[in-house]
């Protein structure tokens, strides 16, 4: 099994666990961790699939690299905004969970 394929599958697994956490976790910081791992998985899948031909064409696909760089920067921006919202919500409502996830 080729390196690309191996990492591709790792990416798939990461995406899966990240998605589960993003949806299932209650603490918003954990959900954000989930989104970041999900993103990492997606990016890894993209690069791995782009690197499939590395053997043949010699060079990996730069377009996938550029896409992932873009994705990473977008992800950190979104995370930063989400964290700012989280801090503000905790300051005003005293909880780091969404209302529907707060213990009754």
């Amino acid at each position: 099994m080729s390196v690309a394929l191996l990492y591709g599958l790792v990416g798939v697994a990461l995406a899966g666990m990240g998605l589960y956490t993003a949806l299932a976790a209650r603490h918003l910081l954990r959900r954000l961790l989930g989104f970041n791992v999900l993103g990492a998985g997606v990016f890894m899948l993209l690069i791995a699939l782009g690197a499939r031909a590395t053997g043949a064409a010699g060079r990996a696909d730069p377009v996938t690299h550029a896409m992932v760089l873009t994705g990473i920067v977008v992800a950190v921006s979104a995370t930063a905004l989400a964290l700012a919202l989280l801090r503000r919500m905790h300051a005003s409502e005293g909880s780091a969970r969404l209302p529907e996830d707060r213990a009754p």
Partner: protein
Amino acid sequence: MSVEATLLDAVLAALLLWLGWRALASADLYKAVVQFMVFGLLLALAWVRLGAPDIALAEAAIGAGLTGALLLDTLARLGAAGAADEPHPLRLTPARAGVALACLLLVALLAATVLALPADLPGLAPQALAALPASGVSNPVTATLLNYRAWDTLLEIGVVLLAVLGVWILDAEPALPRPAPDPMLGLLLRVVLPLSVVTGGYLLWVGSHAPGGAFQGAALLAAGGVLWHLAQPLRLSASLPARAAVVAGFAVFLAVGIATAVLGAGLLTLPPAHAGALILLIEAVAMVSIALIMVALFAGRAPTTVDGRQ
């Protein structure tokens, strides 16, 4: 590929999965975040293994470094109570069965798809390499980011800009406590700051022909900035200079785009003769802006802002 290589890859893969899971599942969020940062560093290693050094740099600096730092410092703001989470945060409950099932199904389908995909699709590598001479740079990734798909990158810088505007709107209180300036830190600063500036600039410069570029450089600059902020808190309010500084990168990039559309061959069509210089200009300004934004994401708005709150 050689056997030991695949062995190394196998170990790395296993570590990634394990750390990734720990980063999500550890009951203690501090532990989780730290593990996430380690996970990020390992990820960078994986990027290198996949022949993506540019991403490796970005991952280490932004993915692991900056994101981790932001997470940690938010945890600090939440306090012990806010940071506490239930002992088994991801335990499978009936309520979560559906989600878990969906995720498993997705993983299975994705895996099947990955295995089913054609083994050797070169993607756009040939076109990208063929167009490289006219792109003004010799690093195909930089060429893609700043030339072939510059439109993506312009909008992406817009996203970064939005993050800081959002933080300003939220009027988020400065993220880090303001300790009394620590002499030790000051000393460190005197060493690190120039270093971060130099390396940042270097990364920017090499980006044209080797791994590196504006974002990686910006992250390093930001690291210096954050240290500075630790030493003596920066006051990055939404004042005009601050606004000008954070928008500069976006503005210059957009200006180049409009100029090329009005005077030149079309939107963001860089004339090959000047492409290299233009790209360097865009990246230089963008780097400074993005670095400032990243610092601002920490510093938030200082007490003395438009409205007198806090």
